[in-house]
């Protein structure tokens, strides 16, 4: 049941990360094992010394949209609009050529909306009702990035956002593949988006997570273009990879971990490329069950986030040679876990 009744192709992908715009900078970082993280400014936190983060400081929203529009969007929406535009272009999809009703979007979102929420509330706490900015409020919701992408590109098909810990993007990719399989959409944008703010670092510090979960946090967006393989073929699109299966469990129950693992990886255990996403501490118990000559930990190089799965799936797609088998493993300390298998190129 982990596979889909129709082959699902990846025909486009893009990213915004600390490494830069697009997936090439991420792939170069992976190939050269170059860490793109930089020090957290010491004036931000008392105990920030030695801490690294992956803020996408080189990203300028005005490079991708008119400045007036950029000012109306929250940072996550800016990332998502920029990444989605490039992914659609790479897939050769001009939205006018495919009815907007047949294109959908499924995004995982991490802390999207939190920055706007904090700014909105700060206005009230500091100035009362006079400090409330109605412009900020609409973008306090986690679905703002997917919605702003849909508005920007006229995407009128299924539209859904998930927040599910370090597997937010994987949750979205599963839904996107299912919507394609069901025929709810011909094309789905799918992936994840997250942001990293100084206030979040203060929150991590307050929770005592600064040197554990929050260490090496990053931000950005990673978005794939998914479609039925026959749909891609009919419009002459290049198929970069095919998603073969997506398996997930919510928890690895103590004492019954093997049953959970068997559901995650029911068939194949050997892969050419293995991509680790999410919280590495949660993924490590799963690694013992699989074999791969090349294992990548992109979180160590570009930073982890709750929705980094979109970037890492895009990177895995970029690394796979035609015919190669890839595995994307993602997990959160309190669940869930995802195993997504891909085959490089177009077997057809």
């Amino acid at each position, binding site marked *: 049941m982990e596979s889909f009744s129709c082959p699902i192709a990846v025909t486009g992908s893009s990213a915004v990360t600390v490494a830069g715009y697009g997936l090439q900078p991420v792939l170069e970082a992976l190939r050269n094992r170059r860490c793109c993280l930089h020090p957290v400014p010491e004036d931000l936190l008392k105990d920030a010394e030695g801490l690294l983060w992956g803020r996408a400081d080189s990203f300028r929203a005005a490079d991708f949209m008119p400045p007036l529009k950029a000012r109306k969007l929250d940072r996550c929406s800016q990332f998502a609009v920029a990444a989605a535009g490039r992914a659609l272009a790479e897939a050769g999809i001009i939205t006018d050529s495919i009815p907007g009703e047949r294109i959908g979007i499924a995004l995982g979102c991490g802390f999207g909306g939190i920055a706007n929420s904090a700014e909105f509330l700060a206005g009230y706490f500091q100035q009362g009702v006079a400090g409330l900015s109605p412009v900020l409020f609409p973008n306090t919701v986690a679905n703002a990035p997917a919605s702003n992408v849909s508005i920007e590109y006229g995407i009128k098909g299924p539209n859904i956002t998930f927040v599910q810990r370090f597997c937010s993007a994987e949750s979205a990719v599963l839904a996107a593949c299912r919507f394609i399989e069901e025929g709810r959409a011909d094309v789905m944008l799918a992936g994840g988006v997250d942001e990293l703010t100084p206030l979040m670092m203060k929150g991590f510090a307050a929770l005592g997570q600064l040197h554990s979960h929050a260490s090496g946090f990053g931000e950005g967006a990673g978005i794939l273009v998914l479609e039925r393989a026959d749909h891609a073929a009919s419009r002459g699109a290049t198929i970069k990879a095919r998603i073969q299966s997506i398996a*997930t469990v919510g928890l690895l129950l103590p004492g019954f971990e093997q049953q*959970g693992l068997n559901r995650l990886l029911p068939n194949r255990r050997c892969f050419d490329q293995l991509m680790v996403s999410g919280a590495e501490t949660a993924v490590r118990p799963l690694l013992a069950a699989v074999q791969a000559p090349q294992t990548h930990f992109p979180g160590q190089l570009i930073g982890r986030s709750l929705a980094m799965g979109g970037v890492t799936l895009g990177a895995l797609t970029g690394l796979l040679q035609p015919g190669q088998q890839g595995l994307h493993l993602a997990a959160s300390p309190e669940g869930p876990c995802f195993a997504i298998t891909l085959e490089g190129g177009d077997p057809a």
Partner: protein
Amino acid sequence: MTVPRIAITGMGIICGAAANIPVFRDAILEGKSGVGPVDLFDVAAFPSQIAVQVKEYDPRAWFTRRQATRLSRTDQFALLAAQEALSMSGLAGCYDPYDIGVCVGGGAAGMFQAEQWLAAELRGETARPAHLRGVLPDKTCTELAQALCLAGYQGSVTTACSSSATAIGWGADLIRCGRQKAMLCGGADSLALLTFAGFNSLKVMDPEPCAPFSLGRQGITLGEGAAFVVLEEEQAARSRGADIIGYLLGYALLGEAHHMTAPEPSGESAARVMTAALSAAGLAPGRVGWVNAHGTGTPANDVVESNAMKQVFGDRVQQVPLISTKPITGHCLGAAGSIEAVATLLALNAKTIPRTLHFRGKDPECDLDYCHDANRPSDCSIALSNSFAFGGNITTLVLGSAALPEEVC
């Protein structure tokens, strides 16, 4: 190939109008609104100072001191409603824990607690970090999975006011496609200063109890709470002897791609999602008896939804009442879709179309039957439940009563 029907075998609720299903049934059928003053936080500065708050709520009546401190108000509501739903379903021990998943629709989640941390931080005071633990909506899902030992799928849908309706539709689909055998689906949300101030700042909060589809309506009345349903494939549920209390026959979701806060004005998108949901259920519009509207009471929403009804039901539209239960429950944001799904099921099983409360006068732009005068008896076994959200994320559920004929779907 026959598509399996998805049965509903349990439901649970807590909201400002009722603390459990039997009381909520009475509230829906007797039109008992929970609207009243808010005392959860200071609302004196706002034009609208009312909501459907869960009153006289003492977490210590349900949770240990540690749980009451650790769990956000939203997570507590979720656990209470989920436990009622699971208890009703008798699901315990019937499936492998890996075969039972959880899908939660979230909204402001633990923002009520987190904003206390922010206020203290801004004042330069020592803030309680525990207030931050539930700030993201996925915490609710994790708490449910761990507390109830559900090891299957875990997912949190965050599409604002349509979150929990979508969570139910998506959860049903996870069963339909064979990934799970049972799902606990619903939503939870609590009042928070963020949303109270936010909707006031947008000037869409009515100072009086919300009056959907009425002349002179000024907007929403917020609410809070949680509602969950237990979904299973029908034959599996029957095989284990479960009581079937309704059906989730289909759903649809889409993005309007129009505006972050304003609905697409022609109603074309709203009509499209209702039509798509019926199509997913394999039903013609003629099978629908009534529609539980999104029905917020904002001037724009109610006209758009009325116009959409005309596009879906055509000449028959005056025979398909469009009602709103939000005057009873308030607009519960992330929990709204699941609360209204439960309200719809209860009314279907009672063969009653609920009345839309707080009528203020007939609006010429809202010219359908809204049951403003009284409940309406109905033998129809199928109803729609609409949930529309910020960002144009709109969802429709197709619900069937326990007495649904076998030939449907």
